[in-house]
């Protein structure tokens, strides 16, 4: 199959609150190829979670998608009816969340919850459903799967619970999985396990993944390409290795520099000065300008995405390029 | 970002937006004023026996009595002008409600904060007692206390307080416990400041919002409970008829069509209670962080 499995163009999601319009997602575009893992990185409030929800059409009121297109396997999702959209959720695109204790219903067994997810899209006999569920639990690394189906979520550890959630997300072999901070709530030692498990799964099943995280270090070990978000926009995107080695946008550079791994021992950690802006009252022009070391008067107008081969950045003064080499 | 307004003003601005709540608040204030100035506003003093004439008893609304004025709401079995009786009754009902509410607030808050602050056995003991009391219906408790102690204003307030202090205690305890664990309290306690000062200046103010909410609800409950007790004949003595007693007086006459004796005091009671509850609801919604979008 040629062409990207997921194609997002100018996705814009606004929240119409009492206090004003919150432009949570403001013109986000990217493509995802089959089996590709993309990292969506940003601080809290950058709009990355809302982007994930928008892809599945799960934006809660008072928010809604106001503009843009989301094409999954060639079908436009934003114009689908609720029924058609629901048909695709879980089957062609699914999502896992940050805290597995909150996503699994404590009063139903794992087996029951998996059966519910199965029944949403297929008619299976109980025996077939149990078999498929057990098969998937084994695939995500849960031993004695058949017996574990009768267990309740609180009988599992945090890492195991997240594996169950992943198993549920994979039940119908979707083309895309959106993972919203899936390892943030887990112990560091478990994080690595889950990371590699998911990478292997993606390779095995050909499922593409969008890994949403605020942790650049975690994502970059897994994703083949990155998109960095700030104040609702993607400010830079491109192949992971290239971005890490040679960032263009000052924000990306700042993120990389502030990683503890990058710090020289004995010196204070580098920080990006200032705080993320309130999405209610964004200044005109580049939203990062107030915190940017490279900012000039030019930055009071909105920079567009500059494309260069397989990467792009939204900046009038990208770092790493000789001055004057900008659009 | 801050527009130099005090928390009170911000509270009021948001409160203002709910028009129903504002109307309710006006109604409550109005009724309090009516109660306060009952003696001035009433066309007749219903407790001055000299004013009453049995000839006027049980007359329908609009009747012109021997005093020469129109009884807008009719008269009761003793010949009292119902409108006046309602104003005086309002006074008593509000009095009792506020008194019971205030005393419950004081006792309950003290117990709750004490339990949260001291901890250990004292905490366990106090909260066990509070929990037991909370699961016991207020009306039964009040019934029992009145039955054992006899009738009278003080006894009634005592009964109401016993039935309600637990709500305040539990709320104060919850809020104080949350504050107790916070670092700034530990820090304050490490200073030479007396413990009492720490509680008074730091823990107490943070417990105030939920206590205000409970207070409004409980005042309405006190009024309702007192009315119920009076209706059953177990409330205040006959010399101080509250709205509940007025309603009870009129009950036997309802079957024969003389509805006004019960209905109008009842309407006054309902308006009072519902208005307080609406205000309380709005206050609660505004203080509840989880509902704020």
């Amino acid at each position, binding site marked *: 199959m040629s062409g990207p499995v997921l194609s997002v163009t100018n996705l814009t999601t606004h929240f119409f609150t009492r206090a004003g319009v919150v432009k949570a997602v403001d013109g986000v575009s990217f493509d995802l190829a089959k089996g590709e893992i993309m990292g969506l990185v940003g601080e809290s409030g950058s709009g990355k979670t809302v982007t994930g929800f928008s892809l599945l059409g799960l934006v809660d009121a008072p928010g809604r998608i106001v503009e843009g297109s989301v094409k999954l396997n060639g079908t436009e999702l934003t114009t689908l009816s609720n029924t058609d959209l629901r048909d695709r959720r*879980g089957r062609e695109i699914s999502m896992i969340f940050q805290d597995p204790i909150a996503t699994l219903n404590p009063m139903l067994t794992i087996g029951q919850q998996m059966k519910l997810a199965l029944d949403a899209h297929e008619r299976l006999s109980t025996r077939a459903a149990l078999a498929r569920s057990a098969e998937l639990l084994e695939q995500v690394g849960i031993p004695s799967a058949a017996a574990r189906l009768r267990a309740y979520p609180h009988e599992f550890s945090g890492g195991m619970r997240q594996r169950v959630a992943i198993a549920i997300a994979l039940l119908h072999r979707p083309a895309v999985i959106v993972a919203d901070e899936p390892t943030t709530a887990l112990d560091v030692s478990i994080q690595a396990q889950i990371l590699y498990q998911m990478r292997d799964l993606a390779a095995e099943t050909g499922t593409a993944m969008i890994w949403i995280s605020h942790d650049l270090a975690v994502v970059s070990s897994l994703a083949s390409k990155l998109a960095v978000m700030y104040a609702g926009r993607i400010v830079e995107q491109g192949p992971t290795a290239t971005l890490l080695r040679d960032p263009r946008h000052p924000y990306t550079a700042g993120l990389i520099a502030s990683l503890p791994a990058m710090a020289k021992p004995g010196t204070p950690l580098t920080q990006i000065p200032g705080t993320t802006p309130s999405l209610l009252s964004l200044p005109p022009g580049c939203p990062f300008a107030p915190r940017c070391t490279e900012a000039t008067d030019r930055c009071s107008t909105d920079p567009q995405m500059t494309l260069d081969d397989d990467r792009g950045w939204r900046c009038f003064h990208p770092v790493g390029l000789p001055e004057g080499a900008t659009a | 970002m801050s527009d130099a307004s005090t928390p009170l003003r911000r509270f009021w601005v948001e409160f203002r937006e709910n028009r129903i709540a504002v109307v309710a608040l006006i109604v409550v204030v109005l009724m309090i004023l009516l109660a306060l100035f009952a003696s001035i506003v009433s066309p007749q003093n219903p407790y001055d026996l000299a004013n009453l004439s049995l000839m006027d008893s049980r007359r329908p609304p609009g009747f012109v009595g021997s005093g020469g004025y129109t009884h807008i709401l009719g008269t009761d079995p003793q010949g009292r002008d119902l409108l006046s009786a309602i104003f005086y009754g309002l006074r008593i009902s509000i009095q009792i409600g506020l008194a019971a509410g205030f005393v419950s607030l004081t006792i309950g808050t003290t117990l709750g904060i004490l339990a949260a602050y001291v901890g250990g056995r004292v905490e366990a003991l106090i909260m066990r007692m509070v929990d037991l009391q909370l699961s016991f219906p207020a009306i*039964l408790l009040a019934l029992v206390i009145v039955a054992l102690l006899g009738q009278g204003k003080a006894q009634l307030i005592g009964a109401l307080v016993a039935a309600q202090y637990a709500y305040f205690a539990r709320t104060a305890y919850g809020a104080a416990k949350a504050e107790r664990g916070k670092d700034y309290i530990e820090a304050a306690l490490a200073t030479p400041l007396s413990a009492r000062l720490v509680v008074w200046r730091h823990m107490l103010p943070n417990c105030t919002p939920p206590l205000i909410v409970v207070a409004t609800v409980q005042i309405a409950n006190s009024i309702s409970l007192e009315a119920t007790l009076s209706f*059953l004949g177990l409330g205040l003595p006959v010399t101080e008829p509250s709205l509940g007693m007025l309603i009870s007086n009129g009950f036997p006459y309802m079957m024969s069509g003389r509805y006004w004796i019960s*209905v109008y005091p009842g309407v006054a009671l309902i308006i009072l209670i519902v208005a307080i509850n609406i205000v309380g609801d709005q206050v609660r919604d505004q203080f509840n962080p989880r509902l704020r979008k």
Partner: protein
Amino acid sequence: MLGFIIQRFMQAVVVMAVMSVIVFFGVYAIGNPIDIVIPPDATQDIREEAIRRLGLDRPLYEQYFIFITNLMQGDLGRSFVYNMPVLELIGGRLPATLELVLISVISATVLGVSLGIYAGYRPDSWISKTIMAVSVLGFSVPSFWVGLILILAFAVNLGWLPAGGRGETVEIWGVPWSFPTLDGLSHIVLPAVNLALFKLAMMIRLARAGTREIMLTDTIKFARAAGLSEATILRRHLLKLISIPIITVFGLELGSTLAFAVVTETIFSWPGVGKLIIDSIAVLDRPVMVAYLILVAFLFVTINFVIDLVFALIDPRVRHGASA
């Protein structure tokens, strides 16, 4: 799970013991214990004779012991007014109260939870707003007033339903119940509605708050992301999750409803235990009062115990004594 049951049972026993002590010493300390067993208008000779006969001149703990042993044997004293054993008296009137309370509580819960879930699921529809506004009324209006209005409207003005009393009864398992008969039903409707109103309002508000909160959780989001239909989510997730707070309040409110039955029974002249206690307080029939308190305490403890059991049944975390 067995350990859980035993633990709760022991707690119940302890509470009962404490309650009996409180009731006994309360009456002893506040009232004159003689008044419990002897009508207030007895002569001095009779009093002294009774004091000796009943051992009231003995030390307190001995009296308490006698009290408890009598209690165990089902002897709760004799009523002054009716001159019959209190146990018999209460027993005779209990079915009336029970059927009133049960019918009210069950209908209030079923209706209230349904309406509340709807109001919580679609909070902005005008139906929901109406439901909530009406629930405020049900909540704040004193129940005796509602009873009055009901009588005024349906009995006096419209004449559809009787204004009081209990209807014809039919014996099931040796106990007279009135709801199986048409006449009985017509008598039970108004008091049941009166009694149910408060609980209905509570359940509506509770179900609504619970629904709103639950629908915003990740559990629901995850279920939606998996493609479950809204109907399935409501049925399999919401109902299960909401059952915990509902059942808690149900248990608490059951006791409260028993208490409010006192008022309803008085207004509608319903011959139940509630009316009995009000009448007894009015004439100071103390044996009945004491017995009533013990009975209520017992009911409370039993209800709480049963609710705890139900929790263990429906919430797997409780079953496994989970601390996970």
